[in-house]
């Protein structure tokens, strides 16, 4: 229309206008990108960072996640328990027991550092995202809720065909082999008529050693 310098040298007057019209017309015939969210669920990639699930059996209360969290949105309470020695004459062990594990999703910025830093694979991303609340305090998810999110965590992606076998496989196979050998041995002993086999000595409660330090917390 108005004489404006054409960047591409000399072109037919009005060709720019026609090009603009063509773009809008072409867009109109294409499928729209709008997602009708509440009616249709979004097609999210499986590794979407929706919510964090806790697999609390793996948690050792090492507190790494809570310490690394930039928002300080992870709350962990625990206490120590003493477990009897596994073998007779062994030493008593102390173990951390999780009392509370909560993530405040009103503070969480979904950076995923807690999941990256967890050495025992107790935290996982879940693609679930519909947990809006009308009260901000309800966004603090306690451990039962975090456990529920765990069930929505998708299976890990398959390894590429030429990949090295994961270490977990070897460990699992080793333990399975050991169990199988043990069962075979037991079956063999059961089959052989061996009358009195001494019962394995029940681990007696050993005397607590007075000089044992209370797990580095001795005063």
């Amino acid at each position, binding site marked *: 229309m108005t004489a404006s310098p054409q960047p591409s040298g000399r072109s037919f007057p009005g060709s720019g206008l026609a090009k603009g019209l063509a773009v809008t017309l072409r867009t109109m015939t*294409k499928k*729209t990108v709008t997602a009708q969210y509440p009616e249709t669920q979004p097609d999210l990639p499986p590794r979407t960072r929706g919510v964090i699930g806790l697999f609390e059996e793996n948690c050792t209360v090492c507190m790494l996640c809570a310490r690394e969290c930039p928002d300080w949105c992870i709350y962990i309470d625990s206490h120590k328990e003493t477990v009897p020695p596994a073998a007779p004459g062994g030493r008593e062990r102390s173990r951390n027991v999780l009392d509370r594990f909560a993530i405040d999703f009103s503070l969480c910025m979904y950076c995923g550092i807690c999941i990256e830093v967890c050495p025992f694979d107790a935290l996982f991303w879940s693609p679930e995202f519909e947990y809006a609340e009308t009260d901000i305090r309800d966004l603090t998810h306690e451990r039962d809720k975090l456990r529920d999110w765990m069930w929505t965590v998708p299976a890990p992606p398959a390894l590429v065909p030429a990949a090295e076998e994961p270490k977990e496989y070897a460990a699992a196979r080793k333990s399975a082999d050991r169990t199988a050998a043990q069962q075979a041995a037991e079956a063999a002993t059961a089959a052989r008529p061996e009358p009195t086999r001494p019962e394995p000595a029940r681990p007696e409660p050993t005397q607590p050693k007075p000089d044992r330090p209370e797990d580095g917390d001795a005063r």
Partner: protein
Amino acid sequence: MNDVLDVALRLLVLLVAFLVLPLVVGQAEHKTMAHMQGRLGPMYAGGFHGWAQLMADGVKFVQKEDIVPAEADRRVFQLAPAVALLPYLLVLAVLPVGPGESGSGVHVDAGVFFVLAVMGVGVLGSLMGGWASANKYSLLGGLRTAAQLLAYELPMLLAAASVAMAAGTVSLSGILDGFQWWWLPWQIVGAVVFFVAGLAELQRPPFDMPVADSEIIFGAYTEYTGLRFAFFLLAEYAGIVILCGLTTVLFLGGWHGPWGGDGLGWVWTLLKTAVLAFVVIWLRVSFPRMREDQLQELAWTILVPLALAQIALTGIVKVAIQ
């Protein structure tokens, strides 16, 4: 008695058309614009693809408080929306939809004159609103409206005069009676000039400098709320219907069509009007707003010479035929 019934029926049809057609255009704009931008547009109101969106908007507008600014020229301010809307109703009444005497609501001999004069009054609504609002943005919008009206009324009149010359009459139905298919290429330049000038007069994008919402809020309509604001919006869409209908009647042969008898003439008129309305929406989606000086330049240096050339061509061909 029969006459009374006839008049009542015509008035009813006219009123229904005046209330429905702008809303249809508005809804079409919502949806077309959305799809041209890769969106869906309204999807909820009314259930099926948001067909009742504009009715819902209307209900919302009715509920709003009608505010008149303290410093405003009260009477003029309140009158302006009606001045903007009613002329289009009058034009719709004389627009011949089908062939013959019964094809239009009212038969007016000097149809072209009447229509163009009354359409010019419609713009007066914006001027009144702009001046009476006592708001600098409204005033700027009003003045830009005035400048635009001044610049684009001339090419519009010249283009319409060209058709009137070709038909040898200023009656709208007379022009349609004389229409031949080869008028289309003959008057095509005039048609484009008329359509573009009409768009500018309606202040539709890309000629929406007077209401440029990103720089002068909403031009002359800045201070309006509620139903009066809705009237201005309705006037814009009624204006689209009228402009497209008028272009159809003057340049595209109105109820003439390759198929169907005279009984189906109104279908052709509506169809052509709808296609033109789509073009109006299409232009709005595709082009950015023109600057004020570009607007004036387009009118005075391109449209007016083109319209004059069209008149010269019309005259030459007319003389050659005779």
